[in-house]
């Protein structure tokens, strides 16, 4: 298969999704701040979205279900980002840090 025809192959997309997902996992375990973790989790969500979209394009019996699922993921991601932002700010207010190691006591 020609390298210029990669975009017509399902595997390209699946591998890309796996790479993004892996990056997300890596970021999630190595990042030490809440915001870094938020960024990493966005990568994971995007990786799974690509999977949905790829299957929707190549194999789905219903041509819209993958797209709709991706749209839902986007909505949830937006909500997650908003909540994550507010939690980060609240944590920062109380601990003066967003480092996960500093946030150890239970009482907020």
């Amino acid at each position, binding site marked *: 298969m020609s390298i*210029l025809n990669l*975009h017509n192959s399902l595997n390209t997309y*699946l591998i890309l999704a*796996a790479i993004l997902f892996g990056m997300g996992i890596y970021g999630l375990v190595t990042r030490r*701040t809440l915001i870094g973790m938020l960024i990493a989790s966005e990568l994971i969500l995007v990786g799974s979205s690509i999977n949905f979209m790829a299957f929707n394009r190549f194999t789905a019996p219903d041509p819209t279900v993958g*797209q709709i699922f991706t749209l839902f993921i986007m909505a949830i991601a937006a909500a997650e*980002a908003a909540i994550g932002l507010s939690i980060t700010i609240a944590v920062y*207010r109380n601990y003066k840090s967003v480092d996960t190691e500093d946030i150890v006591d239970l009482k907020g």
Partner: protein
Amino acid sequence: MNPTDASGILGFFTADGFAGYADPLAGIVFLIMLATTIIGGIIACNSERLVRAVAGLALCFIGVAAIYYYLNSPFVAMMQMLIYVGAVCITIAFAIMLAAPEENKKKGPAGPLSGPLGLITAGLATIGMIGLAVNTKFIVLPKVNMGGVKLIGAELLTSYSMVFELVSIVLLIAIIGSLIIARHGRSK
């Protein structure tokens, strides 16, 4: 893409680009976008400075939007740009500006899985999934997505109307909740 959409004297993404045979321009642009996505992802999960990580995330999302476009879903691609780049990335950037003035305060491992161990973990997960993806035989069905927007709208309001409503409620609760959490402590 719908062939009727691609008119215009300068139309360069012709319908042929998506029909199956190798259009070199589409292929080249696809490779560029693939690289953009991966480079953006690497910046996003490796950069020391969080703002750069967000910039990388935005880059990654732009690439992903282009990839959605290649998957015959211009609507989702545009929504990806609009929501992820225009809203999520900016929200995270705001969070950085509001909450993390000292970025490089401490160095060193964050937890047991950081460093090479984290790399190994993530690498194993990636390799496993790639293997799964490559080794599975997918049945390609002839009914494919042609990139219409009307169909999505119709489905959203018929088959998936319940999910749609639920997502709306989740968003509403998220907005109100984040307002309450973030507003706490400031009386203005």
